Each structure stands twice: as structure tokens, then as C-alpha cells.
């Protein structure tokens, strides 16, 4: 079957290997070009006043303070709603109902929700929170919308962390007469905490960069004050960046690049913390 000209086959094999390598490197190269492009455009306008100024009609005086604070508010509120819900749901799916018909329906539903475009969640937030519940274009509407968006991701990540707890631990506790809730609270959750935290942080870092749902629920892009309560209007890093990118003046494009650097630094530090937790959990879970 594989007989034939040996030399030619070796050459085509070599060529194919190079082709595969080139394809892989293209992805890496694009990432590098993107980062270099953003740094070159944005570093000159990145300064302390950029971090402490409010947005302005003039690019040189524009700052990102309200967007940065808005994003921090938004992500904290989102975490407040999404983390308990996601973890509890993961515990239920993993430790209680493992093979029931209802849990299979929920599982199927979760994997479908994870594939729903984020802008659809924005429409849900607009119809449900902004209009129907009358929360307006507030931080609360934004955070609830984001929470619904990340809950499926948190559930998927947390279940993986729970699954990594060795069976023997559960069985040892059950053998000593512990009830299911005692096993979960005293054995499984403490052991799964590092892995769970990794999953939670990675899910939340997705919410930090999400733009489309916030635009859909009508978050504002020009805000010259800081929110004081969850019912206040707000702006966030990605929407502020979008606003600057979509203006025609080149001055605002540079400011947008500076905003992107701030956003990427926030994301990078979140991911760094997540990776640190993951390494810790790997070390602890070696039996």
C-alpha cells in the first residue's frame, strides 16, 4: 500500500511538516503583531493622567478612570451573583443528581447555553432586567446580564475541579458515617478550592472583556462621574475602547490603544492569579 518512490515520499513528508509548523507559527505571529501594534500605538498616550482622567472631547485630555472603576464594580457584582450560583449548581450536578433525567436535561442545556452568542444575552438583559424589572441601564442590569452569561462557564469549570477530587476521599468519609452534605462541606469543597478558584477567575476574565451584551443593554459610553451604587449608570473598559475606536479622529485611536493596554493588563493579572492557583492545586492533589 505504501510502496513507491521513497525519496519523493520523504520529501513530501518533510514539506508537509514545514507546512504544519508554518501554520502554527502564523497564529503565534499574528498574536505578536497584534500586541506590538497595540503597544506602539498606545504607549505614548499612556500616562498617569490617562488613568485618573474622565473621558473628554479632546483626545489629549481623555482618561479611563470611569471605565476602569465601572469595570471593577461590574466584575465584583457579577462575581457576587454568578459565583455562588455556579458553584452550587456544579455541586448539585456532580454530587447529587448524577444520572437523573432532569440532570441530563440541565447538562444538555448548559452546553447549549455556553454556545449562545453573547449578544443574545444582551437582548435577554435588555428585555428582562432593563425593561421588565425596570432596573434601567444600571450597573445592576449589566452585572445580572453578565452573571447569566458566565454561570454556564463557571459550572463547567467547577465540575472539572470537583471531579479531580479522588473518589477514595469521598468513600472514606462516607464509611465513617458522614452525610452527603458533610462530605461536600468538609471534604470535597476544601480540596477542590484551588481548582475551583482557577475556573472562576478564568470565567470572570471573560466577562471583563465582553462588550456586545453591555452595548445591547444600553450602557453609556461617555460618563464623567464614578458610580456610587449598583443602581447608577456606568461605563466599562471595553465599551469605552469601542467608543474611542469608532470615532474618526486618529487622536482617539491612540487613546483607544492605551485603553486596550489597560484592559490587557487587567486580564493578564487575573490570568496570572488563576495560573498560580492551578499550579498550587496540582501540587496539592498529587497523591
Amino acid at each position, binding site marked *: 500500500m*505504501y*510502496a513507491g518512490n521513497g525519496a519523493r*515520499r*520523504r520529501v513530501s*513528508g518533510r514539506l*508537509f*511538516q514545514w507546512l*504544519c*509548523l508554518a501554520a*502554527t507559527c502564523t*497564529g*503565534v505571529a*499574528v*498574536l505578536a503583531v*497584534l500586541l506590538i*501594534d*497595540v503597544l506602539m*500605538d498606545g504607549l505614548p498616550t499612556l500616562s498617569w493622567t490617562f488613568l485618573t482622567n474622565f473621558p473628554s472631547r479632546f483626545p489629549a485630555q481623555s482618561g479611563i478612570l470611569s471605565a476602569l472603576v465601572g469595570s471593577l464594580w461590574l466584575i465584583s457584582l457579577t462575581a457576587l451573583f454568578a459565583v455562588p450560583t*455556579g458553584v*452550587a449548581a456544579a455541586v*448539585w450536578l456532580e454530587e*447529587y*443528581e448524577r444520572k437523573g433525567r432532569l440532570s441530563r436535561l440541565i447538562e444538555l442545556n*448548559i452546553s*447549549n*447555553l455556553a*454556545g*449562545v452568542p453573547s*449578544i*443574545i444575552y444582551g*437582548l*435577554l438583559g435588555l*428585555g*428582562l432586567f432593563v*425593561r421588565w424589572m425596570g432596573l434601567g441601564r444600571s450597573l445592576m442590569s449589566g452585572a445580572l446580564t453578565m452573571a*447569566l452569561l458566565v*454561570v454556564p462557564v463557571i459550572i463547567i469549570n467547577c465540575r472539572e475541579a470537583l471531579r479531580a477530587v*479522588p473518589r*477514595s*476521599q*469521598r*468513600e472514606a468519609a462516607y464509611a*465513617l458515617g*458522614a*452525610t*452527603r452534605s*458533610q462530605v461536600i462541606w468538609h471534604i470535597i469543597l476544601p480540596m477542590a478550592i484551588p481548582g475551583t478558584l482557577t475556573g472562576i477567575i478564568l470565567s470572570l476574565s471573560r466577562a471583563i*472583556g465582553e*462588550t*456586545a451584551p453591555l452595548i*445591547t*443593554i444600553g450602557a453609556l459610553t461617555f460618563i464623567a462621574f464614578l458610580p456610587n451604587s449598583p443602581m447608577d449608570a456606568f461605563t466599562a473598559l*471595553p465599551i469605552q*475602547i*469601542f467608543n474611542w*475606536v469608532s470615532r474618526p479622529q486618529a487622536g482617539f485611536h491612540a487613546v*483607544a490603544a492605551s485603553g*486596550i493596554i489597560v*484592559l490587557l493588563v487587567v*486580564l493578564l493579572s487575573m490570568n496570572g492569579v488563576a495560573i498560580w492557583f492551578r499550579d498550587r492545586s496540582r501540587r496539592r492533589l498529587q497523591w
Partner: protein
Amino acid sequence: MAGISTSSVQAAAAAAQVGAAPNRSLQTPRARGLRERLIEAPLFAAAFVTILTTAGIVAVLLVETLSFFRVVPLRMFLTDTQWTPLFSDKHYGIIVLLSATMLTSVGAMFVALPLGLLAAIFLSEYASPRVHRVIKPVLEILAGIPTVVYGYFALLFVTPALQRMIPQTAVFNGLSASIVMGFMILPLVSSMSEDAMAAVPRSLREGGYSLGATRFEVATRIVVPSALSGIVAAFILAISRAVGETMIVAIAAGQSPTLALSPLVPIETMTAYIVQVSLGDTPHGSLEYQTIFAVGSTLFLMTLLLNIISQRVLRRFREEYQ
């Protein structure tokens, strides 16, 4: 039992502590059962939130879409060749937005599919474990970059580069958005395809080698065909991701609803239209407000269908090697 070893001492200690703490262990079995039920209820409620989310999405989309279709007949929505809800002469032909979405998605696939598949073959068949450990996370970063950043990159880096190569390229065009979107989706294609290739049993590869096949022949004639359903599932999911992608196309492809086949002119995808209307101050209950839900429903149905097909294909392939 070998499973219960030193590691279980910790568990035993914790369990003992549970027993020693308040007199729970003295409760009757029935009281314990009740307590367990009470604890399970909120956990179940949390899981049920996901069902409510889906129900909420369907309800919100359905209510607004139905009131939309009370004014605009479904036939007009499907057959009209103009999309002008924001002008005085109103037309509601979804085909205009749909064709733009198709154009950018297909364009993105031209980048993501070949590069993603080749990268997957490289990572699964050629890369040493060390190279693999470095390259894979770097590729994953591509998937983690916020889409608004890609939009910036498409509009202010890729488009000017394209204009230098093809002078008639407009400032807003589908091509630039497609290319950048393709790179955003590349990691999805490569990591799902690689997973599928990793599931191909070693014995199949070794059978190939024992017949004198080269690595290239094993990769292209044994591994890829054996992993085909997983790869196809990855492709379909990638299309779904491209159809639902918003910020890149909203920033770089423009907001001109025209029925164009050229990738060099401004167009408007379904998602970009939703963004455009959301940015304006649309009064609640107006037909204009309802159009974004009608477009959203179309988008939701398309991605749902693609996701379901992808899952079906994937489940089939899982059965094959177990």
C-alpha cells in the same frame, strides 16, 4: 482496599471532626434526611437557574419577535432584498444582513479551518512534548483576547495593510473582519481537532508505520480520517462562533446594509445591526426596537442549530473508539 491509604487519614480526621461537632451525629436518621433535603434544595435551585436562562432567552425573543411579525409579514422578512428599518422607506429583508453574516463567516473559515487543522496536526503528530507545552497556551491566548481588541486590530492595522495591497478596499470591509475573526477562532478549531486526533488509538498509527508509511502518510491517511467526525464537529462549532461574533464585524465591516458579494465594500451583519440600533436611543415598543429581537431570534436559531449538529456529530465519534 488500596484506595484508602495515608491520603484518607485526612478525610477520616475531618469526618471525625464532623461527628464530634454539635450533636448532629445523635440526630435520628429521619432528622438527618430532612436536613439533607433542605441543603439540596438551594443547590438544585442554582442548577435550575440555567434552565430559567434558556426559558428567559426564548421568552424575550419570542414576545418581541411575535409583535414584530404582527406588523411585518414573515414573507416580506424572508423575501425582501432591502433592509432599511431606520429610513422612511422601510424594508425588512433579513437576507441582506444574513448574506453579510454568511460572507464574513465563510471568510473567517477560510483562515481558521486550514490553519487550525494544520496546527492541530502539528501539535498532535509532530511537536515534542516541550514544544507542545509552549505553543498550545500561546495559541489559547488568541482565544482569550477581548473581541473589541480584535476590532481595533482589524480596522487600524489589517485594513490599511489591505488597502496598500488592494487599493479599492474601503475603510469598512468584510475581508479585514473575516481575516481577524479567523485568527480569533483558530484556537477553537485547533484544540478541538487535536483532542479528536488524540482519541485515535495508538494501534492505528502503529499499524500504518508497520506497513512502511511515513509520518506524513500516517497523519493524513490514518489520523485525520479517523478523527474526521471530531474535526467536522470543530468546524461546525467554529462557524457558529463566527456567526455570533459581534464586535469585530461591528467595528471593521461597517454598518451599511447592502446586498453585496464583494468582500471589499462596507456591509452590515446581523450582530452589527443589533449593535447599531442599541447605540441609538430606541424607544421601547417601537418597531425599530422590535427589529433587533427579530434579528436576534434569527441569530439564536442559526447558532442553536449549528451547535446541536456539532454535538450530534461529536457524540457519534465518541462511540467509535470506546
